[in-house]
């Protein structure tokens, strides 16, 4: 099938530190109803469903069996991706590209507040014989990488503090964000040390919430939606699981995923050809590292550009107009769907108070979090 694939519907719930008044089913149902209404479809029109989940984050084994009801997917083709959200989006695109499916639905959610010992779950992901017995809280991995990245590139802790201040403040204009705040760089620098040089406020806090996204092939999209947003390129890949062997300066997973997506989208000069980006900032330094290794800034230059306001919402290349994971809340593998949601609103011109004028092309880049080196990149555009 040579047609493009478009996003024709998005649904969300408010992101919140806790959501004890609703079950995961009721939360996802709310997002799904909004997405189907937005796309002008009923669940019976959907040909295939893809959901994102990781059993240890859900609290049940074989969680994919819990997916159908709240999406209207009973007795329909459903499968679950235990990977980052953009990898799951790529799966929807590929299914539509086979020509066998016209409409695909993607779901991702987080009930992070229900995980009582998240560090223990992260620790269980470490190598059982070479790393886990050492007994560190897995957040040390972010400390190790942040240290090497800053020393090697010349970016500073001050720049990392600036990322946090920018994203928390940007989130004030995002009605779904869980952690909007006016905080100073000094607040970040003086917050509790966690794993030097990483401090408490450098870390995105977790949030509960759900997103549902409806995709369709171009001809169907044009019929159903007055403002389809096209998927121009997708990329995803993984680095080695051996932490000791990884390049801890460069996020090579995003360089590779970006090259794959840029090639498909025909992008040669990302900073010229892309208007804004939603980029993983689960740890403050990650936003800078990701900006540099996506090819948006040269290594060592992102901090200064940030200081000059280059990545502000009214800057030359806005990064995280939603407020990012730091401003909106970290939702494990579903975090990147918030980036997709934000990009779709911006490209439709529906981002209200935080609308960036005249945008045509967006980049979304994800990282799967500790202890992984996997990421994804998606290029979206509103161009006919």
């Amino acid at each position, binding site marked *: 099938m040579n047609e493009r694939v478009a996003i024709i519907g998005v649904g969300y719930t408010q992101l919140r530190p806790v*959501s*004890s*008044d*609703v*079950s*995961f*089913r*009721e*939360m996802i*149902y709310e997002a799904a*109803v909004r997405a189907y209404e937005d796309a002008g479809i*009923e*669940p019976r029109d959907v040909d295939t469903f893809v959901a994102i989940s990781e059993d*240890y984050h859900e*609290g049940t084994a074989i969680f994919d069996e819990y997916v*159908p*009801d*709240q999406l*209207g997917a*009973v007795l329909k083709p459903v499968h679950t991706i235990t990977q980052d959200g953009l990898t799951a989006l790529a799966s929807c695109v590929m299914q539509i590209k086979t020509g066998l499916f016209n409409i695909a639905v993607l779901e991702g959610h987080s*009930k992070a*507040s*229900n*995980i*009582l*010992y998240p560090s*223990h*779950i992260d620790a*269980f992901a470490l190598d*059982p*014989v070479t790393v*886990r017995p050492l007994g560190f809280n897995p957040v040390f991995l972010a400390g190790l990488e942040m240290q090497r990245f800053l020393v090697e590139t010349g970016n500073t802790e001050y720049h990392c503090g600036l990322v946090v201040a920018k994203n928390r403040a940007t989130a004030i204009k995002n009605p779904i964000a869980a952690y909007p705040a006016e905080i100073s760089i000094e607040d970040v620098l003086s917050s509790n040390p966690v794993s030097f040089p990483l401090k408490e406020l450098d870390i995105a806090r977790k949030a509960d919430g759900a997103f549902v996204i409806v995709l369709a092939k171009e001809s169907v999209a044009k019929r159903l939606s007055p403002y389809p947003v096209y998927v121009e390129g997708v990329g995803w890949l993984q680095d080695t699981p051996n932490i000791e062997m990884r390049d801890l300066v460069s996020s090579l997973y995003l360089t590779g995923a970006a090259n794959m997506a840029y090639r498909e989208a025909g992008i040669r000069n990302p900073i010229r050809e892309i208007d804004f980006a939603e980029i993983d900032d689960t740890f403050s330094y990650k936003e800078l590292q990701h900006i540099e290794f996506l090819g948006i800034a040269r290594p060592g230059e992102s901090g200064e550009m940030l200081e000059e306001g280059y990545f502000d919402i009214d800057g030359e290349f806005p990064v995280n107009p939603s407020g990012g994971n730091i401003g909106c809340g970290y939702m494990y593998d579903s975090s990147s769907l918030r980036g997709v949601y934000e990009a779709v609103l911006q490209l439709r011109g529906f981002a209200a108070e935080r609308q960036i004028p005249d945008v045509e092309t967006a980049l979304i880049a994800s990282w799967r979090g500790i202890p992984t080196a996997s990421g994804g990149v998606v290029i979206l555009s509103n161009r006919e």
Partner: protein
Amino acid sequence: MEFKGKSLKDRDFKEKNILYTDWHVKAHYAWDCGVALSKFFEGLKEGKLYGRSCPECGRVVIPPRMFCELCFKPTDKWVLLKDEGRINTFSVSYVNTDASRREKPNVPAVIEIEGASEGMGILHLVAHPEKIEWENLEEVLSMIKIGTKVKAVWKPSNEREGAITDIKYFVPVKEE
């Protein structure tokens, strides 16, 4: 075919003669029941079974849910159901979760609750009406079959905590 090597004994694990990992993951979760299951559990604490009805297809579902998974519409009414029903299917189980053998079997069953739509049931245990424990398969089969009418036996109200185990078990009852 002959395999080279040596077979492993329990001792080899205990004395760490081989490399193995034994990790107790602290996989502890809060569980947000939400609107529907919270009401269901509140009902159990009061000794009541609540279902929910769908305005579209008219089904009454239990355990209750806030939306109909078939019509994809919100359900809109609480329906108080009887604490009795009929056995949709049952099995006679001789194994515990850790795979050890049970001396006396227990009987898991799907119980279609009276007043709920056909095929709507909850999973629970069925016990012997007088002595609770079943001696053997023959005894079970002599007293229950698919379609047998059963009634809930509740914990005393001061012991109920809003859990599925507030019903101790169901027992077969005589047809009126």
